[in-house]
């Protein structure tokens, strides 16, 4: 009786699964096979050698230390900001929330360019002498991931019943004790979840490290890239990819565990959670928020200002150059044409990602009765999170080496780029929609069913009304992510059809003030498009965007 819709749902799940298999598992395993099964035989002799290299050790250490430092600093800055933006009530709070969230969707390459122009000799903070050190990388990590902490923890904090804190206070607890014994434990799942994700994003960051690290600093991700592209050491790349894969699976498992706990917690939250006006005691938190906002706006401002700098004076020359196909020998097309490519690709990727993401979200939000199916669903849930953490370089390169033969000879096909971008956007779409679907009482569907609605109609009645806005929000989110995707796209975009992030990277790889100026102008353009899209999303006020 309930088997029919269950079966249909199972079949529906096969579509994204097949997609995941062909466009994720196949390329990644193909890449690993190249390195570890060079002649059709498993050859692990290289593993100790690769892991024993001094360079590998240095890269691993740097990845771990920088990601850990990035996570800690982001949390320390993010918690007071989450408090101020989600627990206090004051004018322009909405604008500040948008400002703090913006960096998350900014293209990684753009973030890299921003910090370079900020810290370069001659930049506003050039005097600090930080250019070429590891500090810009750390700053970029914090800049990029602040939104994850603020949204994840803030969303939880906003829904927290104030009465628990108040009752602790009436029992004689000092504010510090209340924070330590009531608030912090309640936020812990959100904090752990956010920290896991920040660590994940830091340790797999590619565009930022590639643009800021130069030759001195590399993470596992950039090392995979260098080994693959420059040294053609596929074995070394495969070993590092495998290592990264294992670490990511472990982290995702941890995140999933805290996530389920948090979703249970959220259901128990009471109604009384109104934000209050700031008090004198909030000054440190307000100061931290001011710092965070300045920290976000300074690089953005610098980027805009420096893009207008032409030689000793000011002007729009760099912007004019964007439309000129012959502005530089570094590019085969004009930047505006690349922008058209970017937009077209992002539309395709968004449509694809939304279709797959909706199916996945519906499937993973169901709670089957039998424990076996319930486990299957949670494994599926995790499987579609994988693209979030696996090296985009591995995926991109894997595409090239596995999808180059019939029946899947797609190497020269323009569909590869949107497909790769859709894979990257998919986890974010699922994470936006699935919690909303899970929050719908299953008895709503049951009520519709007892009134005579079939399974699909019942699901539509109960879930479509609440899903409308999150779907729009997820669409914007997927679009922004596709626009900014760099890691996989840099491998797959054909030279005559580059996207803007690829063009920006090509420009900054060339010496010369004009190249840099054009890169800055292109970055401003890309950031502007992304921010407009995300501004629309933010207006929709969907709490769960970016809340993992």
């Amino acid at each position: 009786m309930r088997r029919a819709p269950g079966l249909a749902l199972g079949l529906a799940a096969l579509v994204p699964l097949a997609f995941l298999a062909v466009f994720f598992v196949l390329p990644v395993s193909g890449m690993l096979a190249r390195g570890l099964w060079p002649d059709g035989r498993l050859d692990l002799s290289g593993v100790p050698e690769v892991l024993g290299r001094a360079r590998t050790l240095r890269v691993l250490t740097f990845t771990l230390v920088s990601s850990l430092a990035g996570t800690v600093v982001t949390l320390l800055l993010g918690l007071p900001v989450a408090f101020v933006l989600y627990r206090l009530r004051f004018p322009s709070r909405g604008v500040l929330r948008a400002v703090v969230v913006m960096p998350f969707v900014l293209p990684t390459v753009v973030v890299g360019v921003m910090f370079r122009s900020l810290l370069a000799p001659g930049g506003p903070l050039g005097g600090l002498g930080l250019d070429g050190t590891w500090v810009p990388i750390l700053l970029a990590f914090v800049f990029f991931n602040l939104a994850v902490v603020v949204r994840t923890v803030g969303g939880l904090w906003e829904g927290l019943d104030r009465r628990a804190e108040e009752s602790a206070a009436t029992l004689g607890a000092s504010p510090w004790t209340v924070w330590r014994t009531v608030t912090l434990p309640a936020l812990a799942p959100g904090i752990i979840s956010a920290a896991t994700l920040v660590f994940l994003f830091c340790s797999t960051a590619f565009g930022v490290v590639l643009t800021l690290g130069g030759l001195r600093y590399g993470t596992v991700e950039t090392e995979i890239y260098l080994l693959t592209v420059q040294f053609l050491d596929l074995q070394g790349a495969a070993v590092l990819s495998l290592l990264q894969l294992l670490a990511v699976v472990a982290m995702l498992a941890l995140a999933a565990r805290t996530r389920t706990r948090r979703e249970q917690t959220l259901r128990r939250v009471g109604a009384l959670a109104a934000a209050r006006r700031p008090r004198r005691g909030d000054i440190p938190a307000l100061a931290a928020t001011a710092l965070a906002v300045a920290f976000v706006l300074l690089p953005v401002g610098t980027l805009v200002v420096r893009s207008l700098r032409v030689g000793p004076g000011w002007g729009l020359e760099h912007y004019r150059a964007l439309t000129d196909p012959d502005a530089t020998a570094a590019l085969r097309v004009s930047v505006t044409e690349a922008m058209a490519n970017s937009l077209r690709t992002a539309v395709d990727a968004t449509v694809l990602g939304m279709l797959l993401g909706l199916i996945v979200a519906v499937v993973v939000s169901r709670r089957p009765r039998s424990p076996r199916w319930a486990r299957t669903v949670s494994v599926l849930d995790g499987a579609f999170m994988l693209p979030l953490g696996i090296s985009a370089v591995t995926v991109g390169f894997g595409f090239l080496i596995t999808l180059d033969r019939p029946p899947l000879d797609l190497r020269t096909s323009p569909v590869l780029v949107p497909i790769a971008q859709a894979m990257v956007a998919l986890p974010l779409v699922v994470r936006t929609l699935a919690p909303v679907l899970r929050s719908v009482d299953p008895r709503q569907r049951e009520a519709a069913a007892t009134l005579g609605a079939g399974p699909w109609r019942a699901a539509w009645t109960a879930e479509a009304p609440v899903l409308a806005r999150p779907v729009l929000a997820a669409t914007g989110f997927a679009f922004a992510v596709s626009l900014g995707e760099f890691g996989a796209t840099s491998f797959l975009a054909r030279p005559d059809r580059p996207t803007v992030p690829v063009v920006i990277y090509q420009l900054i790889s060339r010496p010369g003030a004009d190249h840099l100026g054009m890169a800055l102008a292109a970055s401003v353009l890309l950031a502007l498009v992304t921010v407009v899209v995300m501004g629309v999303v933010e207006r929709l006020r969907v709490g769960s965007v970016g809340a993992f």
Partner: protein
Amino acid sequence: MLELDDVTVTFPGATAVDRVGLRVEEGSVLAVLGPSGCGKSTLLRSVAGLEPISSGSIRWRGRDLAGVPTHERGFALMFQDGQLFAQASVADNIGYPLRLRGQGRRQRAGRVAELLELVGLGGYADRRPATLSGGEQQRVALARSLAADPALLLLDEPLSSLDRSLRDRLAGDLREILTTTGTTALLVTHDHDEAFTVADRMAVMLDGRIAQEGDAVEVWRQPVSREVASFVGYDTILEPTSTERRSWLPPASPAGAGGGPGADPASSVVALRRSALRVDPEGELRGVVRRVVTVSDALHLEVDVEGVGRMPALAADRGPEVGDDVRLTVDPRGVAHLPE
């Protein structure tokens, strides 16, 4: 007729419903009464087709319902908390089952207005569920269930989420609506009064099993076991082995009733409600008041009854105080002889 035979529902590690057999005649209302966690809601959900049964059979008009999906059973289920569709207006909620059957807008509007009148909410058509009180929401949920023109109406604690006075009033309304529409209904509840007011017959469910089924008054007056007796409000059980003098107890009811033939008050298990003993200057029992609790319309006493021991008793509002000597009279309606 709805027929349940040996219906069993198991969850991993637990049996929620254990070989339950029940009959609901068409046009009648059966209440399944039981404490929370006894499996009564699960039983209701299995009738609705929302919970698969592990064994046994559920038949409607002789047809086995195994394999018939919820939406094809024609049984509307009214949830404890209504489960109205929050985004739709009251009229759209009630009109939902009509729309599923492809009825036109005008036809729907007429029927919705009728149903709103029936549940006493005329003029509420354009309201949103969130703007209604709990009682109003339940009325809308009832109207929506009735709009489906169900062969059988399933009611899952329909009034439990409401406060007491509203519950009493709505229970009466519910009974009236079910009677006037001639609806066959299966009601599950933990509330005796709700079951009493709404249902013709009553089945007491304890720990997954039906402990007693019968006419509502019969179950009330003649519980068949200690467990049923204590659940339907008999708070004192006197064992036959105890040494109290029992001549004050009324004789067991005539043969055929719960006491069984030839039951002797001195040798049977006797269950007493608080209302069995009342303070009365003419009463034949004597005792000393040990405790007094004032409730809204009476005094609940604990009295050390001479030769019996501590017993709960009832007094009118202005009554005795702790330490007073009182006389008590026995009300036979508060006494049941259990067949053990």
